[in-house]
C-alpha cells in the first residue's frame, strides 16, 4: 500500500512540476500589478487591453498566422504524398527514404536552424516569413507523415479498386473514396502542423529576419520588465489556442478511425 502511495505522490509532484508554471501564466495575466510576485493584487483586464493596442504585436500575430497556415498546408500535402507512397508502392530504397523524411523529428532544432541559415545566406536569399515557412515545413512534415501513415495504411486497397471497377476514373475514385476516408487524418495533420508552427521559436528566431513571429516577439519583449504581464497575457492566449487545436486534432483522428471501422493504433494524444 505504501508503494502505491509513493507512486501517487510521485505522479502528483510530476504533474505539478510540469503544469504549475503554466497555471501561473493566467494567474499573473489577470493580476493588477507589474511585479511578478505573490501576493496577488487584484483582478484586471488591463494587460489584455494593452495587447490590442500594440501594433508590433499585431504584425507578429499576422506573420505567425500566415506562416502556420502555409506550413500546415504544405507539410500536410507533402505528408500525404509520402504516406500514400509508403502505403501503396514498393520501390528500391523505400525504407531509407521514409527514414530520411522522419529524421528532422530527432535532429536538434538549433542545428536545423543554423544549417538552414547558412544555406539561405549562401544562396543569397533574404530572410522573411517564407524562409521560416521552409524551416517549419521541414520539421512539421514528419508529424504529418506519422499521422497520415495511419490513415493511408489502414485503407484497404480493394476499396479503390472496387470504385474503379464500378466505373469511376482514378481521379474520381480519389475524390469519392480515398479522400473521405483519409479526411479526418488530413484535418488532424493540418491542426497539429499549425500548432507546431505557431509555437516554434528557434527556427523562427534564426530565419525570420526583421519579420518576427509571435514567439520571437514575445522573447524580444522579455527585456522590458514592465511588459512582463503583457507577455503573460499573450502566453495565456497561446496556451489555450494550442490545447484547443490539439484536442480538435485528436477528435478528428479518432472519428476518422471509427468511420473507417479501424482499430486505434496510436497517435499523439
Amino acid at each position, binding site marked *: 500500500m505504501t508503494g502505491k502511495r509513493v507512486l501517487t505522490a510521485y505522479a502528483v509532484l510530476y504533474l505539478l512540476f510540469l503544469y504549475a508554471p503554466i497555471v501561473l501564466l493566467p494567474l499573473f495575466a489577470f493580476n493588477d500589478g507589474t511585479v511578478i510576485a505573490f501576493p496577488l493584487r487584484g483582478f484586471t483586464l488591463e494587460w489584455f487591453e494593452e495587447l490590442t493596442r500594440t501594433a508590433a504585436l499585431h504584425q507578429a500575430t499576422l506573420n505567425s498566422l500566415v506562416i502556420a497556415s502555409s506550413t500546415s498546408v504544405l507539410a500536410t500535402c507533402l505528408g500525404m504524398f509520402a504516406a500514400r507512397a509508403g502505403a501503396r508502392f514498393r520501390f528500391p530504397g523505400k525504407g531509407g527514404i521514409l527514414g530520411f523524411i522522419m529524421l528532422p523529428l530527432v535532429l536538434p532544432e538549433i542545428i536545423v536552424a543554423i544549417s538552414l541559415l547558412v544555406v539561405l545566406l549562401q544562396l543569397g536569399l533574404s530572410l522573411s516569413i517564407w524562409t521560416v515557412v521552409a524551416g517549419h515545413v521541414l520539421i512539421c512534415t514528419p508529424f504529418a507523415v506519422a499521422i497520415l501513415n495511419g490513415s493511408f495504411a489502414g485503407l484497404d486497397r480493394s476499396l479503390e479498386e*472496387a470504385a474503379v471497377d464500378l*466505373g469511376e476514373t482514378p481521379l474520381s475514385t480519389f475524390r469519392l473514396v480515398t479522400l473521405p476516408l483519409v479526411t479526418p487524418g488530413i484535418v488532424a495533420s493540418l491542426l497539429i502542423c499549425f500548432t507546431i508552427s505557431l509555437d516554434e521559436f528557434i527556427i523562427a528566431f534564426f530565419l525570420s529576419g526583421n519579420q518576427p513571429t509571435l514567439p520571437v516577439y514575445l522573447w524580444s519583449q522579455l527585456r522590458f520588465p514592465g511588459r512582463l504581464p503583457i507577455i503573460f497575457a499573450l502566453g495565456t492566449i497561446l496556451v489555450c489556442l494550442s490545447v484547443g487545436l490539439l484536442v480538435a486534432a485528436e477528435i478528428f483522428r479518432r472519428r476518422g478511425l471509427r468511420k*473507417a471501422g479501424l482499430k486505434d493504433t496510436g497517435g499523439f494524444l
Partner: protein
Amino acid sequence: MTRPIIELRNVHKYYGDYHALRGITADIGAGEFFSLLGPSGCGKTTLLRAIAGFEDISSGAILIDHREMEGVPPNKRPTNMVFQSYAIFPHLSVAQNVGFGLRRSPMSGEEKRKAVAEALEMVGLGGYGARAAHALSGGQRQRVALARALILKPKVLLLDEPLSALDKKMREQMQHELRRLQRQVGITFILVTHDQEEALIMSDRIAVMFEGSVAQLTDPQTLYRRPATRRVGEFIGMMNFLPAKLSGETSGGAMVEVAGLGTAELLSDQIPEGRAREGSIGVRPESLTILHEGQTAPREANAEVVERTYYGDMTYYDVRPEGVDGTVSVSMRNMPGRRVSEPGERVRLAWDPAAMVFFP
C-alpha cells in the same frame, strides 16, 4: 457451351521473373457459372484480375464479348467484381454502396432509388438501405457487394473466393443462393475458389489450375469421374491409385492388368494421358464395393480389412487387396441388415473397370 462471352487466348503473365500464368486458353460461355479451381498460389486471382483489367497480361489476348481488352481499363470493361474482402465503402450507407455504380448512369434519381431497392430485394436485404455499411455482418456485406455489382447488369460477374470469410453454415447457404441468383439474372459468373466441393456444387464448368496452367476444363461430373491427370484426380475428392500395366490393344481401347484386382478392358477415354506400359489406375472409394455373404459380382478380388471408420451413414474401410503392398480406401453406405466388417476380416471386393482411369 453457349456463345463464348470470354475468350482467353494463350494468356501469359510474368511478375518479374515469376511466370504466374503459363498460356491459359479457354472459352467461357454466356450465362455460364464457371469456376477457377486450384491450390493456393496457382494463379486464380491473377487470372481473374487480368479479366477485370487490374493486371496487365504479358502476352496473349483476352476478349470479352468478342472485343479485345488490351489497354481497356477496369472502369471501361463490361465486368464487375466481388472482392474477397467485399470492399464495402465504410463511409457510405448500404443504399449508397449499392447505388455507387449508377452515379454516371443517365437514370433519374427516382429510377436509381428503385433500382437500388430492387437490387437489395434480390439479395434478401430489402429495407436495409439506410443502414451504415460498417454495421453489417459478414454475410450481409457479401450480399451488399453482390447487389452493388449486379445492379450494373455486367456481362460477367467476377467473384474472388467470395465465401471464404464466412462460417461453414453461412457458406453453404450462400452457395445455394449464389447459384439461384445466377440462374435468375442469367449473367456469366466466374468464381475463384480453392474448395473443390464448392466448385462441384455450384459450377456448370470448372477449370482446374496448377502452377499457372489449366490442367482440365470440363463439367463437374466428368471432372470427378474422368480426371485428366493423376494430379487432378488427387485434388478433386479422394482417389485410390493401384499399380497397373497396359497389355494388348483392343478395338475400343486397351487391356489393363491391375495389381491385386485383375484384368479388364479400358476404353480410350479412360486413358487420358496416353498409353504407357506401366502406370497406375485411379479409382474412387465409392466405386469399390465390399460384397457381403452370398452376394456376387462380375469382377471380384480378395482383400483384407486393415482399418475401418464408422460415420453412421457411411463406413470407410482401408483394405489391402491380395498381392498389393499398400491399402485402398473403400466407402460403403450403411444399409439396414448390412454388417460392418472388422479389421483383420477377409472380404471379397467387387470392382468395375468403367469407373477407372489409367495414368502413366
